């Protein structure tokens, strides 16, 4: 998937992944896609709850080698 921007939040603990994601989203335009990499185990529930509340769309998420990856479209 073509991401407009990549946010590396690996190694960061709660609440940083969500704080950084919010900041990164602010810099994007409508329809842009943000790719987020995180290692915090809570990131999956955190990001899916956050996208639901903020109205952005969580397009896809994967997990490889303990790295959680997310693709979020700005709405």
């Amino acid at each position, binding site marked *: 998937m073509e991401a407009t921007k990549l946010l590396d939040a690996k*190694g*960061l*603990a*709660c*609440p*940083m992944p*969500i*704080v950084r*994601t*919010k900041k990164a989203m602010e810099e994007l335009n409508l329809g842009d896609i943000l790719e987020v990499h995180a290692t915090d185990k809570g990131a999956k529930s955190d990001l899916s709850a*956050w996208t639901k*509340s*903020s109205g952005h769309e969580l397009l896809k998420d994967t997990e490889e080698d303990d790295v959680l990856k997310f693709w979020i479209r700005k709405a």
Partner: protein
Amino acid sequence: MTEKKKTTIILFSGDYDKTMAAYIIANGAAAYDHEVTIFHTFWGLNALRKDNQVPVKKGLLEKLFGKMMPRGADKMGLSKMNYLGIGPKMIKNVIKKHNAMPLPQLVDMAHEQDIKLLACTMTMDLLGLQKDELIDGIDYGGVAAYIGESEDGNITLFI
């Protein structure tokens, strides 16, 4: 655009761990685009103290209070396993190891995220704390200011 949601937290505790929880929740709520207020009262005021000594005119009792209370967030003790200050040293090591944010940085980030830090003026008087002794960029108020912020709020916590 819809009206912003609001989170308000009453921080009564002056313990490092509880204050850390309060500031993590506050920063998380700010990332949710909530308008966030932390109302610092009683021991919670210590989170807002400058870490250096500020020369201000005080009575004996106030001076004593000032000496006995932690000067700033980093000097706070733990609510459990404090062990005369060994506990906080241990937990700070663990925080570093897990790449979590230490409390002083969480307070800085709260500033960055425009979280409103409100100091309760009545308890400032009780504990003998003066405005010059608290960090810059905070607001001052009483119970009405807090109620005003939280009456149409969505989340309210007492920590």
